[in-house]
């Protein structure tokens, strides 16, 4: 009970903090609609499979991924700059319970991107917003967000250790869009991309949303997203323990 309460209060705290950052919110809204426009034009000119909503959901998930990646790395680095990282490390609960709400909050803020993308598509590209299975969609959306947030947890553990690890976030943004089928269909990718996509939650998250939107069966994808999330949680827990200790040994928690 206490753990759930800690996660809930931490999540609310970080969502509020991120929402009050005009820079973060503008980035979460403006950048995705630019990329969404690119995706819509690619769809129109390429005679692709699927529907416009299929493309819109992929573009929206790109925004959630960017928000998670940028947020998890940026938030930890920002906490280091503003001196709060040390205060957060030296509290009694395991560091996992301090960082997990933060990465979940960054993924949640990504919903701004998804919303902006869908509204943009509806206004300017005639994207239909009818969802075939609203219940499954309502389940798939938070599961996808949690899956991405937990993937962000693994990334955040490296950001705790390395002062300049947020450079990694720039490197990981576009490759993940491609290998998880967010931007273009995985069927267009080389065969070796398949196994990589299977271990990344965005692949299953976006497929779950697409299946729910077109009246398919999203539940296997939702299940995979949850399984991967659980695996990320275990890896993230041990990675955080390891990197937290290393950071205390090597004195990388503060800037001074």
């Amino acid at each position, binding site marked *: 009970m206490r753990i759930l309460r800690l996660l809930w209060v931490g999540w609310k705290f970080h969502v509020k903090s991120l929402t009050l950052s005009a820079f973060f919110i503008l980035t979460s809204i403006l950048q995705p609609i630019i990329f969404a426009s690119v995706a819509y034009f690619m769809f129109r000119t390429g005679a692709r499979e699927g529907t416009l909503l299929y493309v819109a959901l992929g573009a929206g998930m790109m925004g959630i991924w960017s928000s998670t990646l940028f947020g998890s790395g940026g938030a930890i680095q920002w906490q280091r700059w*503003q001196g*709060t990282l040390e205060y957060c490390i030296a509290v*009694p609960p395991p560091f996992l319970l301090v960082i997990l709400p933060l990465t979940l909050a960054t993924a949640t803020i990504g919903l701004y991107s998804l919303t902006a993308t869908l509204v943009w598509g509806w206004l300017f590209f005639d994207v239909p917003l009818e969802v075939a299975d609203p219940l499954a969609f309502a389940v798939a959306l938070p599961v996808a967000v949690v899956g991405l947030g937990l993937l962000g947890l693994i990334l955040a553990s490296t950001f705790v250790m390395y002062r300049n690890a947020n450079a990694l976030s720039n490197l990981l943004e576009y490759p993940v869009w491609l290998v998880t089928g967010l931007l273009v269909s995985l069927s267009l990718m080389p065969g070796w991309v398949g196994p990589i996509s299977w271990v990344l939650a965005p692949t299953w998250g976006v497929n779950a949303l697409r299946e729910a939107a077109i009246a398919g069966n999203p539940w296997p994808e939702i299940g995979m997203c949850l399984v991967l999330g659980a695996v990320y949680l275990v890896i993230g827990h041990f990675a955080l323990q390891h990197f937290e200790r290393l950071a205390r040994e090597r004195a990388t928690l503060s800037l001074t």
Partner: protein
Amino acid sequence: MAVVEAIDLHRTYRTSTGTFRRKWKDVEAVRGVSFEIGEGELFGLLGPNGAGKTTTIKMLITLLIPTSGTARVLGHDVVKDAREVRKSIGYVFGGERGVYERLSGYDNLRYFAELYGVPPKRIRPRIDELLELVGLRGREQERAEGYSRGMKQRLHIARGLLHDPPVVFLDEPTIGLDPIGARELRATVASLAQAGKTILLTTHYMFEADALCDRIAVINRGQIVAEGTPADLKQRVADGTVVEVEVFGVPEGTVKRVRGLSGVLSVSVEEREQAQVIIVQTRADVELTQGILGTLDGANVGRISRREPTLEDAYVALVAEQ
């Protein structure tokens, strides 16, 4: 039983220079620091910038792992039982950093109350008590980015006390505060000591240590160079005299020449508006005023005075001995 024990603590940092051909160097920030703090004691760790005060405190609050040596807080090892240590301590770093700027003071306190496991029903009244204690009542709903340095510092104090810890670490809490803010903060620290908290205070303000601390350890270049009550430390230079010479433009090499005079214990130079003041501690049995003036190469000299040594002089002498 000692509440805080530091036993032969060492801490080495590895730093590098150069871009392509990196050269690594080990810097020993703390070199064998040992001390004990008893229950309810206000212990001061006094030293110049870079002496190892903050490194020592960070090892005690579990933020840094010692390179060697051990430390315990309430009997818990700071490395092996870090969680137990964290439950029973509060800590405050000086300066403006360390608050969530975009959120209100109340939001900051509410979040940390949860992290420190304050029971849900106690959170609101506890925050109210602390806002009252640190004088932030009425400003708690404003964003912290609009707070003055003093207000942020008081917010730090409130955050450090949320879970009513028996042991409190204060790392230069008055640094950068205006005189009134610093005085109020010292009053808060004194009230914490009266309430029975065990406190470790680091500072480089002598009068602050003198006014607040039961015992002081002077740290310089990573080592404790003296330990005792403020009176003990003053006694170390009690049989000396301090000569202050106001000079308008101290000639190069003066400090070295004064230090070479027989009977000189320490020399320091302070800037005071247009002038510099050469502060020379001497043995009581020597009269060195003429000798000091003789080292000034005809520089323009203002007021000359003699006085009894203070704790600050004791500190300067201790640090200068190194």
